[in-house]
């Protein structure tokens, strides 16, 4: 049930471009990603392949991103799959499958080329197309328990271990490992993990595209659902998921962005004392299992501050939340906690709607740089110095050429934000007639209609 893709590391929308002198890649063949992976796995010379999802074509490649004269390039048509052993800089088991590019011993000695016989003559380990010995990279051709090694360029030291760490020790995890992005791909019992982008042998909801912030790469152990530790779906059909063994960092990270009177972002850093839901139901204590059973036991989540029955966000939900003391309502968000302001401090102010503001602020209230008014990228402007010659649309300064009632604004340099208001506030004492002063000045002439409401039909 293991997929041949398990041996590969995927880079989305990426192409590997080689220099002119490189070995030719094979002509594209038809096939799914898994079929291509199988073809590449059985060929020693194949180290990677391009897969075109649209045309379902694949192209086997004899190099990786670490090969000389080769570079990665963005290309939305291709996904690039490279053999893990060539990319990982940690080892599994005794590292006989290690094909990385480390070329220095644990004591800092440069490695001797495997084909060279000086300063150390040897005939046992000469490179062949099968044994993976290459350049002067650390390798383990004789299954040495200490892992990959090499002959050294120091005449007094014939060979030495390279000290390449095991993957479970190479990257440690903090707290519950939600930020772990290491390369362990086996569970505690040694079972190989299932790829997150595959739905076999186990169907699951954690599609990498749907959770871009959880680092669901290939089949590496991760913690997308705030379990106690990183885990993975396994390639054993009889066992859906299992924890992985990953070293805990000695130092716990200093928590950032802690707040008590308001919450920022999703409120993972909220440490306030609100403990009642907005509908008036008291929260359940985190160290209690009634009326609701749960796995957020305070001792198992030391970094989440699950004290008393305070609203908290231990699992990256939309906002702080809690189990409620009412048996019929398991969970309630604590949206009634105020959000912390997230706008820049303002340096200048404007009168009225700012239609006569000619200052030099050129950043939005979120800190994004304004796009010059005369520019056409990243946004094609509908308002420009040409269309509004009298509006003083100079450089990328905030202005209000269309008398926007909410003040000066600008097009922004962020491709996802066409325009936004600026870090300028109304001057105190600057009087704009309140909308309520002549409430009936605005009439309501016409509107659409809603069929069902008018025909008074039964349900």
């Amino acid at each position, binding site marked *: 049930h293991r997929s041949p893709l398990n041996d590969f590391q995927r880079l989305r929308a990426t192409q590997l471009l080689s220099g002119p002198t490189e070995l030719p890649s094979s002509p594209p063949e038809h096939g799914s990603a898994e079929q291509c992976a199988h073809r590449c796995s059985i060929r020693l010379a194949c180290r990677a392949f391009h897969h075109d999802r649209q045309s379902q074509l694949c192209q086997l490649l004899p190099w990786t991103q670490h090969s000389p004269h080769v570079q990665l390039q963005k290309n939305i048509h291709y996904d690039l799959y490279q053999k893990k052993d060539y990319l990982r800089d940690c080892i599994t088991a005794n590292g006989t499958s290690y094909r990385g590019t480390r070329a220095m011993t644990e004591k800092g000695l440069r490695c001797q080329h495997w084909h060279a016989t000086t300063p150390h003559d040897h005939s046992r380990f000469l490179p062949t197309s099968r044994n993976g010995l290459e350049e002067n990279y650390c390798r383990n051709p004789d299954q040495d328990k200490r892992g990959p090694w090499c002959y050294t360029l120091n005449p007094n030291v014939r060979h030495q271990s390279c000290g390449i760490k095991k993957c479970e020790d190479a990257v440690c995890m903090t707290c519950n490992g939600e930020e772990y992005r290491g390369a362990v791909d086996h569970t505690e019992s040694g079972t190989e993990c299932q790829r997150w982008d595959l739905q076999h042998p186990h169907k699951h909801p954690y599609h990498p595209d749907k959770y*871009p*912030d959880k680092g669901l790469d290939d089949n590496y152990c991760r913690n997308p659902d705030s379990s106690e530790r990183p885990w993975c779906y396994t390639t054993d059909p009889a066992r859906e998921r299992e924890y992985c063994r990953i070293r805990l960092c000695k130092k716990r990270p200093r928590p950032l962005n802690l707040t008590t009177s308001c919450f920022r972002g999703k409120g993972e850093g909220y440490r306030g004392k609100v403990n009642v839901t907005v509908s*008036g139901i008291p929260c359940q204590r985190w160290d209690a299992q009634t009326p609701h059973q749960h796995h957020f036991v305070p001792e198992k989540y030391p970094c989440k501050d699950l004290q008393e029955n305070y609203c908290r966000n231990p699992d990256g*939900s939309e906002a702080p939340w809690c189990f409620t003391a009412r048996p019929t309502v398991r969970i309630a968000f604590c949206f009634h906690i105020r959000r912390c302001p997230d706008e820049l401090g303002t340096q200048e102010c404007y009168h009225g709607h700012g239609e006569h503001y000619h200052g030099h602020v050129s950043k939005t209230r979120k800190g994004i740089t304004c796009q010059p008014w005369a520019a056409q990228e990243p946004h094609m402007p509908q308002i420009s110095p040409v269309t509004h010659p009298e509006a003083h649309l100079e450089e990328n300064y905030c202005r209000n050429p269309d008398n926007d009632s909410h*003040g000066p604004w600008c097009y922004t340099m962020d491709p996802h934000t066409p325009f936004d208001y600026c870090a300028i506030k109304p001057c105190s004492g600057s009087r704009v007639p309140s909308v309520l002063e002549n409430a009936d000045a605005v009439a309501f002439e016409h509107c659409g209609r*809603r069929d069902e409401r008018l025909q008074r039909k039964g349900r």
Partner: protein
Amino acid sequence: IIGGQPGNSPWTVSIRNRAGVHFCGGSLVKEQWVISTRQCFSSCDADLTGYEVQLGTLFKDPGPGDPDQQTIPIARIVCGPSESQLVMLKLVRPATLNRRVALICLPPERYIVPAGTICEIAGWGETRGTGDGSVLNVAWLPVMAHGECNAALRGRLKESELCTSPLRAGVGACEGDYGGPLACLTADCWVLEGVITPSRVCARTDQPALFIRVSLYVNWIHKVIKM
């Protein structure tokens, strides 16, 4: 919705997170645009990949065979002017309008809905035992005059807020309804006059309920859609 009853509100949408869980409401103002409240979203540049809106069904969690249900991914979020607490959500593709899915009209810029107008709130939020939490609930509230409301709130009412009078029966929006509509029948049409925002307590019987006054931001809404 507390103190409401099952009802129909074809512009009210359910906003769902990556796990498919409903967490806020919204209003369909254009085939590809929904209005909601800033409080429901972690930031103005939040990555909403995997988030969706659900419309066309009365059920909070409809079964697989619901014929009119539409589920549309959210493409991006645009935050409103600083005081507004509004956001607009662009959908990946337009919603299909039919007898279960309709747009709600926007009022003219700076229009003031007259006090006493009976308006409707709608949502799949907490009912606190007063209704069936598995279906869309609606309730009706009378608009309160600005001055009267400002007095009741000891002068803390903003121009960008709109009030409804408290009802003795304890009727109002609650957790899970935030971002949803306060819709008023005006000139033979349902108009989005307010957006539900979180309050300290739901459905108070002694204090007015506050909503974002949408008419102050109609020009901004059109500007975003046009841009």
